[in-house]
């Protein structure tokens, strides 16, 4: 099962998709609610802070290059505590995976298919995800490799077509919000796009061919993804202005609606919806893959494939339960998910580092240690 390894370029693509993920859809509005027209500063700070987080994850994963994060947990914390933390980790991944499916469902219903109930859309998304996970990581990575070009072409069209609409006055008054609130807002973005990439530690050292190159690509992919979020947020502020951005649930979709090139190329937002659906799909599939694979490793199961169908059913039900209304969605994305990810993505890894420092001598004798 561990034979299907992916190349470092494929890993780069997966990291880019994962970093952009769902943040491209709702982060501009969450940021601009908090810091108005200074949202773009928050994204730049978040990129820099995010690099620190990625550095922490790379250090952790380099101790045992042949093990996944779940096995590392067990090695360092011991069996009972390690398994508890791993179960929390897997549950979080599973929750986020279904939250993203709920997101894609809500997005499609509110913007494109207003009369379709949520269940069929979520079920269709889940069928593709379950299919992809059953086919294995290699298939996911290859499809990401192809679709990244579609993504970048569409993104280029979007950003170039918006240049005539840019209004620099929307940036003023410059740096009006407090530095603390800018830091708080950038913290949300760090959590959503970077801390959640602890998911990738399930595949990071163990499934890669060239680890050294992949280490670099982890950082590069994170920077590219963050730059795309910076561009989108800045464009939202430039074109729509911060009041409109904070009022939208999906500001980047509203951004695509105002594209108007010479009164000829207009209303291409449905084409642009491909962008968000692609990102959400890859982020969600990585979460689901990591969750099923992690579960199989916690329970010492040889093959994760039999678990995918039942987990798929649970995921559909969960995604339908997730957001009773749009306020819950905002509360979950901006507050609850942030706390949950902080605990699982920052506190537990830091604890891991601490315990590793204490048990260093004993762990270095381990044959799987680097």
């Amino acid at each position, binding site marked *: 099962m561990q034979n299907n390894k992916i190349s470092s370029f494929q890993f780069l693509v997966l990291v880019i998709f994962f970093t952009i993920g769902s943040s491209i859809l709702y982060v501009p509005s969450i940021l601009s609610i908090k810091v108005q027209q200074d949202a773009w500063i928050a994204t730049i700070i978040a990129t820099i802070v995010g690099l620190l987080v990625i550095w922490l994850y790379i250090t952790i994963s380099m101790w045992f290059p042949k093990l996944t994060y779940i096995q590392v947990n067990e090695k360092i914390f011991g069996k009972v505590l390690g398994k508890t933390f791993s179960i929390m980790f897997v549950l979080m991944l599973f929750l986020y995976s279904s939250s993203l499916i709920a997101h894609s469902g809500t997005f499609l219903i509110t913007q494109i298919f207003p009369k379709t109930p949520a269940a069929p859309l979520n079920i269709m998304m889940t069928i593709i995800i379950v299919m992809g996970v059953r086919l294995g990581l290699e298939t996911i990575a290859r499809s990401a490799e192809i679709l990244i070009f579609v993504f970048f072409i569409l993104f280029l069209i979007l950003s170039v077509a918006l240049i005539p609409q840019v209004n620099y006055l929307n940036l003023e008054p410059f740096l009006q919000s407090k530095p603390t609130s800018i830091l708080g807002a950038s913290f949300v973005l760090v959590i959503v796009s970077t801390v959640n990439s602890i998911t990738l530690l399930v595949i990071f050292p163990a499934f890669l061919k060239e680890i050294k190159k992949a280490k670099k690509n982890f950082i590069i992919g994170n920077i590219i993804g963050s730059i795309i979020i910076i561009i989108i947020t800045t464009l939202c502020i430039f074109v729509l202005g911060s009041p409109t951005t904070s009022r939208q649930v999906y500001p980047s979709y509203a951004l695509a609606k105002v594209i108007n090139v010479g009164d000829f190329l207009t209303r291409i937002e449905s084409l642009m919806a491909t962008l968000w659906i692609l990102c959400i799909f890859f982020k969600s599939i990585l979460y689901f893959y990591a969750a099923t694979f992690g579960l199989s490793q916690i329970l010492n199961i040889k093959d994760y494939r039999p*678990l995918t169908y039942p987990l798929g059913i649970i995921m559909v039900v*969960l995604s339908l339960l997730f957001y009773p209304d749009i306020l819950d969605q905002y509360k979950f994305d901006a507050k609850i998910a942030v706390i949950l990810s902080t605990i699982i993505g920052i506190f537990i890894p830091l604890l891991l580092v601490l315990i590793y420092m204490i048990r260093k001598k004993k762990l270095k004798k381990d044959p799987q240690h680097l």
Partner: protein
Amino acid sequence: MISSVGILFLAIVIVFLEVPSLLQKKLKKEFIVFSILLVIGVVSGILFSFGVKIMSPVDLLSYIFQPIYNLMGKS
């Protein structure tokens, strides 16, 4: 009603797809985990289709995190 029949039908299809190969390879542990997950999925799906209020994990999380969440709201 129809959707719960659909879920049961889906569950039967999944059992037919997965269980023979699991039993053939004598993977007992896999079979147990698979059945537990399938039962959870089917039961929650049927309850949901009948409109029974199931507690979602989000409510549980927001209950647990309420104190931290209040702290964050103030700052």
